[in-house]
C-alpha cells in the first residue's frame, strides 16, 4: 500500500476546558496503513484529542484533514461516515444479544419489516474471517470472554466501514495471550490497509506494535518518532518529563514467621458456583505474595474472605496464628490487616469527606481521637498533617475534599492511612490502577519498603510487570483455586499466561 498518503492530519488543534488547556496546538499525522501510538500519562490530553477526531468534542482552534480533505466532524455519526471507528476501553455491548445482533445494531439488514438475521450472521462471519478474528456470530456476549468481546467491538467498526480505527487502552483488560492475539489482529488490519491509532500509556506495547509514536504531555506534543529510532527508556522520559527508573530496588530477604495462613477456603459465588474453591497459602513476614490471574477468578472473593467482608462456607484464615475466619471487618482491621482496595473511589475513600476526615476512616473510634463520645478533630488534623508530609500527598490542604485530589494523591492518602495502622499484613489490590508513572514509582517504593520493614504483603494485580517487579512469589488463581506458584525471579510470561488460562500441564510442569 502507499504509505505516503495521509489518512488523518490534525493541524494546530487546541481545546480548552475551564481552567485547563487539554490540547495545546497539537499537530498529528496518521499515514495510511500505519499503526500510530498516542502515548501519554493520564490527563495528558490523549483522550480529548481522540474525542475531537471522533466528533465528540469540537476543537476551539485548528483544522482536521481526513484523506487530504479539510472536514468538520460535528458528531460521532459524521465520524463514522468518514470511515472513523473507535474501540472504547469500556465496551458498549448489549449483554444478552448475540455477537451478530450487537454488530448490526443500528444498521440492520432488513427483509421487509423483519431483520434479516441470516444475512447479518453471514456478513459478520465474512468480515470476521477476512481479518482472522475467529468470532462466532451466534454466540451471546455474556457467554464469551472479554478478549472476544473486544473483537466484537472491532468487528462493529469494520462492519460500519471504518478505514481509520482508534483503540482506547485496548490491552487494559486482556490476558497475556489475548494481548498477543490482539497485536496479531491489529497487524492484520494494518496490512489490509486500515490506519490505526492506539491510545496507551504502556511502553512495551508501543514498542511491540506501533510503527510510530506521538508522545503527549500536558496537552502538548512532545515528540513524534518511529519506534525503530527509540526505546522504552527514552519514551518514558519523554512521557514523564524526567528520568524514570523502572527498576524497583529490592534486596533479597529471608522471610520470617508465617503471618497470614489461609487454608482451603470455600465461598459460594453469585451463580451457585464456588467463587473460592479451596484456596490455601501462607505469607511470611517480609514477603510479598503476588496473585496473578484473569479478573473474575476469585481474587475479589479471596480479599472479601480475608478482610471479613463476606463469610466463607468453609476453610480458615489465621493471622499470626489467631483465627480470624468470618470475623467482622473491624476485628480483622484491629487484628493488624491494612487494606488498599481496588476501587479507591467506592471502597477506599469517602469522597465528600475532607482529606483529614478520610485519614481516620478506620481508626476514628480509637482513644487517640477522643476518649468520650466526641471526636478530637485536633488530633485528627495533627495526624493528617503528619501523614500528608510523610507520604507527600499533594492537595490544597487537609480540609480539601478527597474528591478534589488527583488519583495518585488519593492513592497516596490511602496508603498513608493503612500503613499508619502499622499492620502485620497489608493487602494491596491493583494498587497502581489508573496512576501515572510517577505515582506508580512511589507506590511500588512504599510497598517494597513495607516489606523490608517486615510486613507481609498480599498483592493482587493484573499487571504482570508489577507482579514481577514487586513479588517474592507469584500465585496464579484460576476458577477460585491457586493453580500453582512461580518464582518471581525466573520470569516466564508464557507459562504464567497458560496457568492463568487454566492450563494444568503448565502448572504441573513447573513442579
Amino acid at each position, binding site marked *: 500500500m502507499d504509505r505516503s498518503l495521509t489518512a488523518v492530519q490534525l493541524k494546530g488543534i487546541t481545546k480548552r476546558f475551564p481552567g485547563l488547556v487539554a490540547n495545546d496546538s497539537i499537530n498529528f499525522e496518521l499515514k495510511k496503513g500505519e499503526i500510530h501510538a498516542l502515548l501519554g500519562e493520564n490527563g495528558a490530553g490523549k483522550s480529548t484529542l481522540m474525542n475531537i477526531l471522533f466528533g465528540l468534542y469540537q476543537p476551539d482552534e485548528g483544522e482536521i484533514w481526513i484523506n487530504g480533505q479539510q472536514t468538520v466532524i460535528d458528531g460521532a455519526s459524521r465520524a463514522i461516515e468518514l470511515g472513523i471507528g473507535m474501540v472504547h476501553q469500556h465496551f458498549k455491548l448489549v449483554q444478552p444479544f448475540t455477537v451478530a445482533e450487537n454488530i448490526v445494531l443500528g444498521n440492520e439488514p432488513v427483509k421487509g419489516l423483519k431483520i434479516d438475521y441470516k444475512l447479518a450472521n453471514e456478513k459478520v462471519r465474512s468480515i470476521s474471517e477476512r481479518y482472522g478474528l475467529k468470532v462466532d456470530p451466534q454466540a451471546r456476549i455474556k457467554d464469551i470472554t472479554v478478549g472476544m468481546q473486544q473483537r466484537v467491538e472491532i468487528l462493529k467498526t469494520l462492519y460500519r466501514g471504518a478505514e481509520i480505527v482508534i483503540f482506547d487502552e485496548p490491552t487494559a483488560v486482556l490476558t497475556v495471550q489475548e494481548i498477543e492475539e490482539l497485536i496479531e489482529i491489529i497487524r492484520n488490519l494494518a496490512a489490509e490497509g486500515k490506519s490505526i491509532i492506539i491510545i496507551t500509556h504502556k511502553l512495551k506495547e508501543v514498542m511491540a506494535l506501533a510503527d510510530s509514536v506521538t508522545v503527549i504531555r500536558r496537552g502538548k506534543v512532545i515528540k513524534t518518532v518511529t519506534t525503530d529510532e527509540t526505546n522504552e527508556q527514552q519514551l518514558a522520559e519523554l512521557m514523564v518529563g524526567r528520568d524514570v527508573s523502572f527498576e524497583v530496588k529490592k534486596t533479597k530477604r529471608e522471610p520470617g514467621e508465617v503471618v497470614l495462613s489461609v487454608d482451603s477456603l470455600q465461598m459460594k459465588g453469585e451463580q451457585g458456583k464456588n467463587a473460592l474453591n479451596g484456596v490455601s497459602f501462607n505469607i511470611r513476614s517480609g514477603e510479598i505474595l503476588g496473585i496473578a490471574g484473569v479478573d473474575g477468578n476469585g481474587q475479589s472473593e479471596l480479599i472479601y474472605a480475608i478482610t471479613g467482608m463476606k463469610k466463607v462456607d468453609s476453610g480458615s484464615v489465621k493471622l499470626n496464628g489467631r483465627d480470624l475466619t468470618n470475623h*467482622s471487618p*473491624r476485628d*480483622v*482491621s484491629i487484628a493488624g490487616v491494612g487494606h488498599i482496595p481496588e476501587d479507591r473511589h467506592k471502597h477506599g475513600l*469517602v469522597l465528600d469527606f475532607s482529606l483529614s476526615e478520610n485519614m481516620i476512616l478506620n481508626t*476514628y473510634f480509637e482513644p487517640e481521637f477522643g476518649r468520650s463520645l466526641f471526636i478530637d478533630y485536633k488530633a485528627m488534623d495533627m495526624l493528617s498533617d503528619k501523614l500528608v508530609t510523610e507520604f507527600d500527598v499533594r492537595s490544597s490542604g487537609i480540609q480539601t475534599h478527597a474528591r478534589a485530589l488527583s488519583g495518585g494523591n488519593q492513592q497516596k492518602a490511602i496508603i498513608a492511612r493503612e500503613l499508619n495502622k502499622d499492620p502485620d499484613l497489608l493487602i494491596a489490590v491493583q494498587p497502581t490502577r489508573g496512576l501515572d508513572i510517577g505515582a506508580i514509582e512511589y507506590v511500588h517504593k512504599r510497598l517494597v519498603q513495607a516489606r523490608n520493614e517486615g510486613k507481609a504483603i498480599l498483592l493482587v494485580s493484573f499487571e504482570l510487570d508489577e507482579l514481577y517487579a514487586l513479588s517474592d512469589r507469584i500465585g496464579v488463581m484460576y476458577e477460585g483455586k491457586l493453580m500453582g506458584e512461580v518464582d518471581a525471579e525466573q520470569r516466564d510470561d508464557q507459562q504464567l499466561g497458560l496457568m492463568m488460562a487454566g492450563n494444568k500441564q503448565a502448572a504441573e510442569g513447573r513442579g
Partner: protein
Amino acid sequence: MDTVKKIFNKSSILVPLVAIVLGLIVGAIAMLAGGYNPILAYTSLLDKLFSTPYNVGEAIRAITPLIFTGLAVSFAFRTGLFNIGVEGQFVMGMTGATIIGVLLDLPWYIHAPLAVITGAVFGGLWASIAGYLKAKRGVNEVISSIMLNWIALFLSNFIVAKFLVEKGQQKSMPIHDSAMVKIDWLIKLMDNARMHWGTLIAIVCVIVFYIVLWRTKQGYELRAVGHNPDAALYAGMNVNVTMVKSMFISGVFAGLGGVFEILGVFGNQTVMASSPGYGFDGIAVALLGGNTPIGVLLGAALFGGLSYGSAGMSFGAGVPPEVVRIVIGAVIFFVASHGLVKWFLKPFLNKRASKRKEAA
C-alpha cells in the same frame, strides 16, 4: 468561624434567596392572573405576621413543629436515608404524649418530662421499624415508611377512640395540667398566643443536630455511611446498625414535634380524618434548608411564616389560601431546581467575574 463560613458560603445562601424571590414573583403573577393585587396581598401577609404580639406568637407556634420535622428529614438524609415517614412518627409522638398525659397522674416535674420522652421514643421506635426493615431485609425505606404513616394514623385513632376518648366526643380526654408545657407568663405577654417550651426545645434540637453529626464519633459514622456506605463497610463500620440508629434519631425529632402539638398547644388529641401534614411539610423545609441545621431553622421560619401569614392575605387582599399554597409551591420548586436558579443567575455571576478580571 470556619463552620459559620461553611454554612453561609455564597451559593448556599444566594440560591435559596433568589429562589424565594422567584417564587414570590411567580406567586404575584398567579395573583395578577386571578385579579388580585399582589402588592396588597404581600403587605397584608407581612402585616398579619408582625402586626400584633398575638400574631407573632402564633406564627412561632406554627413554625415550631416544622423545625422538628425538618430536622427529622434532614437527619435521615445525612445518613443517606429518605425518611418520608416523618408524618407517621409525628403522629406516634402525639399519641405517646397523650397516653401518658391522660392516663397518669404525677407531679409536674415527672409527668411532663415523662410524657415528652415517651412521645419521642414512640416516634423513634416507629422510624426504627423502617430502618430495621431496610437494614435486615433491604426494604426500601420510602415505601415502608409511607405505609407506616397510614398505620400510625389509624393506630392512633384507634387508641384515642378506644382507651382515651372523652364521652360523646371525637377526641381524647384533656391532658392533665401536670403534663402540659405551656409558658403561662409568655402567653400573657403575647396576648394569649399559644406559647410553649417546645419552641425552646426545637432550638436546642437544632444545636443537638449539629453536635451529633459534626462533633461525635457516632455522627462521623452516620455521615460516612450517608456519603459512601461501601467505604464505610470497608472501614469496618456496621452500616446496618448505623442506619437503624439514624432512623431512630430522626424519628425522635419527628416525635418531639408531635409531642409539643399535644402538650403545648391543644391539650388533647382528636380522632383525625387525615394526618396533620407537618411531616410532609418537613420534607420541603429540609429541602429549603439544604439539610443543614441552621437552614432548617430558616426554612421552617419561611414555610411556617408563609402558611400562617396566608390568613392575612385572604383577609386583607381577598386572596384565597390556595394561591398562597401556589407561592409556597413555587418557592420550593425553585429551591429544588438548584440548576434552574443557577442557570438564571449565571449571566449575572459571569458579568461580575469578568468585571473582576478586567479590574485585575
